């Protein structure tokens, strides 16, 4: 399928209308701008570039800052489907920056509180470590040695002051362990780090604390000091979580406002980006760009409406002398269903404008190759399920759009595997149902004596299928090349190019000669005259190319080499190299497709191996071997088949006609990436 026809717009509008026209272009989102550096006409060079009201850098910085600010609370701002340009908010960059600074300072304050809490938690962890080193059992408690950084105090306080002490120590990294309460006196143990003992002593004295050696009776309580720590850490951790939520809420409270500002800033940025492609005189603004031909009227109407008819629009067809710039952008026009295959094509390159977009052909070629290499109904079902899972995960993720397409590719590959599984009668490696075409497993294992109804009897027949398939793919590539060359009007290339008619003629001749030789048990070649007509004649005709090129170039530059005979060896050498390239190239291209059969056979062999292993055991082990075997084959063979199918598409098919030197049509729209 050829690429979408494009047309070039050259427009002049009044300077006062430029903002409205910019908005109209952005709303349509279909114009691929031509850079002002490509405006080479004499009068245009004197025009100046358009300066936006606010610096693009400032707008962009603030937009990114808001984006980061919202992302930090897991809020992802999105552009609305429709934008009301009439209600566009004018953003005061300074004011909004200050507001952000204020909010960030507020959040910073919360982070400071979190930090203090964290240090308390760490201090408790420290106490725990110290207790583990110096002993934590109350029964053996003694004031720890000088070595320890722990301070352990035992004593009593009036029972009426218990709450006061609890409150004052609540926020401190201190363990306050209540042992026993007798009448109006409470006995406690206070554990803290020595470095905090100054603060702790003060609070204790305020609560009427009196330090005492514990009685034997109290010491016999087997209460563990360590048990108190987790509870306290948990309390502090909960406080931490609350603060963390508060920090997020600071952003969330302002999210609505900032989302609106973000949208306005983004629209501004896009408008400024459009205007970087404008050139202006004192009263007018000039710009140019490529638009799909089908959208021409829509854009015209939009610009005319925005400028109240005060505009000059000139439309140029690609290739006409009036067009600005050399390169015509390409828009691929494939149905949504082909998106995964378009991704494969785009990864290789973008077709040049006016040439064939191979996406629609890649689909069957890729899937047939995949199916021949990975033919199993059950394993195909697994691939489909995996693909569907992937697609559902990545469906709404714009950042992972490629993964979504990849998931769909897996689904397609799974369906191909299912189809070929039915044709070859393979269901998780077993032959549950009779094959519709031939029994791949029986042929590979050498048990296909009864398959007399099939035309495929041996591995050689399978290899032959892939060779025929390869020849078809290569010829399809050659035909596309001829169509592209005819469209470009390069008649010499049509005949003399390696992938031209003479090249194709030699290839066809080679196929016939090889077929003749094989069908005569490798003992006989066709008649010499036939060989000459099939391969010799086009080879001789190819010799014309180099002298023709030389004379054409010499004519253009008016420089001739007087001694033409000296050039003959060079022409001869180039001709020989070209012929060698054609012969070896087409041969290796064709044989390359035999890997499809090879990988298909390997797939079957692996399954046979796992079935043999399973047969050596019984019961659960046997089932386990089959499950693991199938999983291994799905992963390893699936990957191999996918990669090899891609490799064959890229190097044996695309290289015949597809140069991938085109430039993608990238209009500036509301959804453009910045």
């Amino acid at each position, binding site marked *: 399928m050829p690429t979408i026809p494009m047309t070039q717009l050259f427009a002049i509008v009044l300077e006062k209308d430029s903002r409205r026209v910019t908005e109209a272009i952005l709303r349509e989102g279909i114009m691929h701008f031509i850079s002002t550096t490509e405006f080479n006409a004499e009068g245009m060079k004197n025009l100046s570039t358009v300066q936006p009201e606010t610096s693009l850098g400032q707008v962009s910085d603030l937009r990114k800052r808001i984006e980061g600010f919202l992302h930090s609370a897991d809020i992802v701002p999105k552009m609305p489907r429709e934008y009301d340009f009439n209600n566009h908010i004018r953003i005061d960059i300074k004011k909004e920056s200050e507001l952000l600074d204020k909010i960030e300072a507020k959040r910073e304050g919360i982070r400071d509180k979190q930090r203090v809490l*964290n*240090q308390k938690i760490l201090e408790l962890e420290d106490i725990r470590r110290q207790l583990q080193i110096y002993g934590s059992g109350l029964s053996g408690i003694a004031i720890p040695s000088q*070595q320890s950084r722990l301070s352990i105090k035992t004593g009593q306080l009036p029972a009426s002051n218990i709450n006061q002490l609890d409150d004052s120590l609540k926020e401190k990294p201190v363990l306050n362990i209540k042992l026993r309460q007798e009448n109006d006196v409470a006995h406690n143990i206070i554990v803290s780090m020595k470095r905090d003992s100054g603060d702790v002593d003060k609070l204790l004295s305020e609560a009427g604390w009196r330090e005492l050696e514990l009685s034997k009776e109290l010491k016999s309580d087997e209460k563990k000091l360590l048990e108190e720590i987790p509870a306290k850490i948990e309390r502090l951790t909960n406080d931490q979580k609350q603060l963390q939520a508060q*920090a997020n809420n600071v952003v969330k409270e302002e999210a609505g406002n900032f989302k609106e500002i973000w949208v306005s800033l983004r629209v501004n940025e896009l408008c400024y980006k459009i205007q970087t492609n404008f050139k202006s005189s004192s009263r007018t603004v000039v710009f140019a760009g490529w638009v799909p031909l089908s959208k021409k009227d829509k854009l015209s109407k939009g610009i005319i409406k925005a400028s109240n008819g005060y505009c000059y629009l000139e439309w140029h067809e690609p290739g006409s002398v009036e067009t600005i710039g050399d390169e015509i952008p390409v828009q691929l026009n494939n149905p949504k269903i082909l998106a995964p295959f378009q991704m494969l094509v785009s990864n290789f390159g973008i077709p040049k404008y006016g040439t064939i977009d191979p996406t629609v052909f890649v689909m069957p070629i890729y899937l047939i190759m995949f199916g021949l290499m990975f033919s199993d109904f059950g394993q195909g079902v697994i691939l489909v399920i995996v693909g569907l899972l992937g697609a559902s995960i990545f469906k709404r993720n714009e950042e992972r759009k490629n993964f979504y397409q990849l998931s769909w590719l897996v689904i397609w590959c799974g369906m191909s595997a299912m189809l070929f599984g039915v044709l070859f009668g393979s269901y998780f490696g077993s032959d549950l149902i009779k094959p519709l075409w031939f029994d791949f497993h029986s042929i590979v294992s050498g048990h296909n004596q009864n398959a007399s109804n099939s035309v495929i009897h041996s591995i050689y027949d399978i290899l032959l299928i892939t060779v025929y398939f390869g020849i078809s793919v290569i010829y399809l590539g050659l035909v596309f090349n001829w169509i592209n060359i005819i469209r470009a009007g390069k008649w010499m290339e049509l005949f003399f190019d390696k992938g031209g008619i003479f090249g194709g003629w030699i290839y066809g001749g080679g196929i016939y000669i090889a077929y003749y030789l094989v069908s005569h048990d490798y003992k006989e070649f066709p008649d010499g005259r036939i060989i000459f007509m099939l391969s010799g004649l086009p080879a001789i005709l190819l010799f014309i190319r180099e002298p023709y090129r030389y004379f054409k170039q010499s004519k253009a530059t008016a420089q001739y080499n007087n001694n033409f005979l000296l050039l003959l060896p060079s022409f001869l050498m180039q001709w020989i190299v070209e012929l060698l390239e054609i012969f070896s190239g087409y041969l290796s291209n064709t044989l390359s497709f035999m890997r499809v059969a090879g990988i298909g056979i390997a797939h079957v062999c692996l399954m046979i191996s796992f079935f043999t292993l399973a047969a050596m055991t019984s019961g659960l082990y046997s089932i386990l071997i089959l499950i693991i075997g199938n999983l291994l084959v799905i992963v390893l063979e699936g990957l191999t088949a996918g990669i090899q199918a891609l490799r064959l598409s890229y190097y044996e098919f695309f290289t015949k006609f597809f140069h991938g030197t085109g430039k993608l049509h990238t209009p500036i729209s509301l959804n453009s990436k910045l």
Partner: protein
Amino acid sequence: MKISALSKYAFINAKLRARISKILPDDLLQQIAKTSSLDEAFVLLRETNFADLEKTYSGTGDLKQVELELLKKQIEFYRDVRQYLDPSAGQLVDSLLIKYEIDNLKNAIRVYFNRNIHKSTDKTIVHYILYETIIQKIPVDLIINAESFDEIAGHCAGTPYSRIIDQYSQDVETNSSLFRMEIAFDHFYYQNLISSINKLDPKDCNITQRLISVEIDLKNISWVIRLKDFYDLTLKEVLAAVIPGGLNLNKAAVEELYNAENFPVALQTSIKYQYPTLSSLMSSQTSGSTSRLLLIHQILEEIRKEETQKILAGYPFNIGIVLVYFILKDEEFRKIRKVLNAKHYGRTEERLKA
């Protein structure tokens, strides 16, 4: 049976090359430098191997806690690579890991020193010391709580550090400075590293020696800058601190640097014949001895960069890739720490670049 270089390094080479491609690009670090708060900076790390740092920060608000996590992560990278190496190369990784152990030990001794000798009480520093074992079993808690250097040496008994602590404790107490003890630790690190290098296969040994020698040059130049300009030490004292084994800066070169006469001859010759692309840097105009020393530091960094590039582009089945990976990872960690601290202290992007 001797294992071939191919079987020794094929797997780790492929693995590390894949990992090297995931090292944070400078563009991202620049973007982080442009953010206006730590929270925004951490958002940009979300799609990287450092995503878990954001969790630590948003949960604690504590950058030092994040730095501690970074340190743990950095040590883990070494350990992870170590498991794929043969014993001699594994020993080299242990020797490299000792750097972190020594830094941690230095921090623990500093806490003791500040408490007992400087009598200052920094309440928080103890929380950000690593208490887990890196190579040797060192009871960090006991060192922090010790009452004397004898006690610290006792806690380190059975490790090579005990001897150093014994040897320099008197000097620390007399001069009220940990400087010489810390230099001795660093000297031990490089001596131990060089002895591990000598146990490698000849080819691996050559490559490692070359890279470590550049590293030693960098360390020496940093010291000359600090000791001369900030501590005002005499030439003799500076020479005593110099680590032997540098590639371009031997003691004579350091003497030249100290006197700030000119570029050391050894460095000039090296640049002329081995790194001609750096000659433009050498001809940069600088005024003042510190700027000249900083320029030399920059040149040495460029030399290290060239050496690592050579290894990456050269024969893949040797220890070079492992060392380059560590160098690049260390550099990545250093940059992350730097940029996060800059955000924490409100440094602008320009200041950070400077």
